[in-house]
């Protein structure tokens, strides 16, 4: 019997090379030291992979993990994480998805699944409580994600089975292939779909009839009830409902364009004049069919879109979310919202990250504009900005790895190396990951977010919405009245390292428990003290009742993911921004004339993290302070200590 509640106390290890499936006991120390989710994954992948592990080789580990609060009615917490060494970046890779899959895995009796090895033929894993089997998937290979989910449900004779699967992009090892869940939810970034494809693993289907128990049901329900009311009623309830509820994430299109931070024309500028045409109002009015929700979420930001007539007739798909609208819309200088919805659907069916697809396309378009990529190089596709044919054709070609698509499917960093001729100037990425939907010139803190994020230029590990969306009271409560003015100023770098380090730590807990970024990043409802109230009655781990302990565990997780990247060769030289953000003043919009001043924020951040400012490496005493002595010993043997 596992000592702590919330957890199931059992995990699965599936060796695809030998077809062996083992049920193993969850070590208590793992729960105590790393909480769950990303924390579990960081520790396991650190231990079981090493610098020689090829992301697309059998030895890579691929973990599907839940957290202690998964399935236990905290809102919003219907999520799970997929982690592996990333084929896109070669460093730490993790990607999260909502939906109903994560809770189902808990009800089936498991905290996580570790996949290792490679199957000699396509298979999928079926988990039904005690019964776990690898099933033939030859007939599913080549099928898109929607077909795959439907066929699996049909052959299992159960339309409630939750399915996480890859499409043709994952099979073709597109380096930013995603994993689709329950049709419209996706673990998008970092290429987890390609890791599945490389293992010949088409899908993971789960069904469970078990329970998630909590340590102190009465107290737990009081805390959860408070949280539920906090997020669904009053000021926060209104903040959630008027934005995420009414419009979903597309609400951000208008909000971020207003501050000049909507990536446009491959990040050339942060202001899109036609933003309204791809904005929240038109989507809600003309295309939104129905509102959807992840498991036990009170915010309910998801929706389905339909196009009834015209060239994209019969399009029916989840979303599009803000990042997809940005990547496939403004970023490609495309103001046709129907094309955005359609391209978003294609990405979902093929199983590809919409952000990286959009950025790969805009990279090709800009290379063409600059005379680096000719029409002939691009298989006779007219690479004009906003050209619908270019966006659609390149999406197909990337997924199928055809012609120019085969180059773009490598991600913009590798693609630029292949193309040469200075193409890297237009490959907007950090550590190999295409930048997401922000612009550091218009919001200085984003520069630091991109530079230090453990998975590359991405918003979900350390983006602050506090100054972006003007949560003044929250800034005051968390950082003190004296800092409000500077933090609120989007274009100031002062105190931004403090804010970014703080949210990065907060999200490490959020991503371990597993809670959604809505309600934590935007709007910033829950903070360390809320989780300190939640975790003890949930798990019985009393020490988590102290927010200082939570912060220490958060730092442990952040340092371990950093150590993983250091082991892969990352250092200060890699904590950089694309030159576009540093050297090219913003050409238009509210942030016109600004560049990102990364250096002072980065130095302050290293200080706050107690990392070495010269090298970006982690000193022994910093690691030991957060309980990572063994990690520092290993790094020392590799000469990776400062």
């Amino acid at each position: 019997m596992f000592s702590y509640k919330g957890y199931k106390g059992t995990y699965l290890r599936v060796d695809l090379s030998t077809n062996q499936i083992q049920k193993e006991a969850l070590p208590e120390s793992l729960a105590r030291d790393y909480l769950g989710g990303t924390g579990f994954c960081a520790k396991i992948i650190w231990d079981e992979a090493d610098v020689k592990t090829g992301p697309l080789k059998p030895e890579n580990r691929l973990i599907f993990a839940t957290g202690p609060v998964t399935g236990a009615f905290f809102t919003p917490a219907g999520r799970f994480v997929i982690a592996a060494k990333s084929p896109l970046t070669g460093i730490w890779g993790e990607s999260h998805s909502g939906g109903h899959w994560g809770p189902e895995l808990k009800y089936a009796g498991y905290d996580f699944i570790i996949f290792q090895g490679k199957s000699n033929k396509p298979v999928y894993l079926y988990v039904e409580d005690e019964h776990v089997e690898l099933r033939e998937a030859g007939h599913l290979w080549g099928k898109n994600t929607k077909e795959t989910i439907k066929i699996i449900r049909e052959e299992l004779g159960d339309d409630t089975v939750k399915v996480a699967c890859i499409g043709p992009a994952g099979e073709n090892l597109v380096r930013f292939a995603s994993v689709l869940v329950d049709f419209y939810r996706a673990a998008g970034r970092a290429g987890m779909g390609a890791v599945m494809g490389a293992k010949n693993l088409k899908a993971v289907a789960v069904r469970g009839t078990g329970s998630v128990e909590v340590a102190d049901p009465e107290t737990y329900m009081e805390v959860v009830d408070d949280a539920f009311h906090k997020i669904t009623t009053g000021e926060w309830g209104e903040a959630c409902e008027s934005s995420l509820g009414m419009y979903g994430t597309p609400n951000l299109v208008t909000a971020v364009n207003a501050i000049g931070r909507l990536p446009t024309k491959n990040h050339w500028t942060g202001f899109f004049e036609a933003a309204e045409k791809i904005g929240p109002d038109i989507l809600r009015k003309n295309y939104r069919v129905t509102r959807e929700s992840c498991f036990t979420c009170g915010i309910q930001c998801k929706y389905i879109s339909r196009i009834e007539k015209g060239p994209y007739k019969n399009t029916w798909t989840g979303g599009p979310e803000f990042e997809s609208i940005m990547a496939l819309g403004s970023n490609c200088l495309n103001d046709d919202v129907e094309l955005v919805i359609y391209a978003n659907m294609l990405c979902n069916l093929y199983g590809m990250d919409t952000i990286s697809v959009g950025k790969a396309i805009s990279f090709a378009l800009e290379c063409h504009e600059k005379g680096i990529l000719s029409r002939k190089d691009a298989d006779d596709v007219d690479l004009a900005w906003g050209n619908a044919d270019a966006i659609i054709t390149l999406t197909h070609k990337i997924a199928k790895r055809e012609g120019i698509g085969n180059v773009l499917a490598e991600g913009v960093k590798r693609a630029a190396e292949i193309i040469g001729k200075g193409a890297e100037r237009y490959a907007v990425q950090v550590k190999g990951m295409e930048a997401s939907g922000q612009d550091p010139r218009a919001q200085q803190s984003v520069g630091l977010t991109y530079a230090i994020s453990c998975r590359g230029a991405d918003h979900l590990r350390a983006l602050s919405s506090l100054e972006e969306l003007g949560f003044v009271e929250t800034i005051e409560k968390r950082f003190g009245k004296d800092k409000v003015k500077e933090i609120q100023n989007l274009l100031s770098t002062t105190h931004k390292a403090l804010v970014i380090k703080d949210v990065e730590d907060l999200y490490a807990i959020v991503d371990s428990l597993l809670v959604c970024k809505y309600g934590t990043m935007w709007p910033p409802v829950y903070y360390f003290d809320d989780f300190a109230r939640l975790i003890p009655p949930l798990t019985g781990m009393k020490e988590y009742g102290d927010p200082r302990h939570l912060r220490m565990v958060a730092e442990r997780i952040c340092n371990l993911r950093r150590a993983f990247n250091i082991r892969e060769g990352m250092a200060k030289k890699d904590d950089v921004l694309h030159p576009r953000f540093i050297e090219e003043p913003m050409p238009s919009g509210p942030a016109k004339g600004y560049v990102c001043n990364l250096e002072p924020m980065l130095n302050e951040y290293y200080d706050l993290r107690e990392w070495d400012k010269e090298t970006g490496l982690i000193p022994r005493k910093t690691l030991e302070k957060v309980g990572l002595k063994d990690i520092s010993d290993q790094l020392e043997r590799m000469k990776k200590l400062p």
Partner: protein
Amino acid sequence: MLVRKFLVIEPEKCTGCRICELVCCFHHTKEFNPKRARIAVLRDEEAGINIPMVCQQCEIPLCEEACPTGATYRDEKTGAILIDEEKCIGCRMCIYACPFGGPSIDPFTMMTIKCDLCGGNPQCAKYCPRKAVEYLKADRVGIMRKKVSAEKISKMITQGVVY
């Protein structure tokens, strides 16, 4: 006379979050397990259709008629049809008799379970964020459904069909 209250479902408001399932099973078992809930949201995720299904506490309860041991009876306070656990033999006849799938089998105890209106404070209605499940007095039930239709008609007239 006390006017009885009923659980009223409006599927068009349901987003499929299944909060109703979790608060239901927690109320009855102190554990989180949707398979032990008395309410279930039937979902077509591809189409985006979500329909919560729960016992309607019928006036002519077929479950009661089908019960061979007389285990089902109406609670005087709430009007809910309850199952006397002492008398229930777990024969599932009530499950087969019910046209709505009201009663079901608890996969843990293997006994028959059904909605008991939580003794008059149904948790599903209390927590539903969209009010897709409401607990309303008898006289409000008909009017509420009429209002839903009337709103749709007025929208159709003023703006064309809106979802």
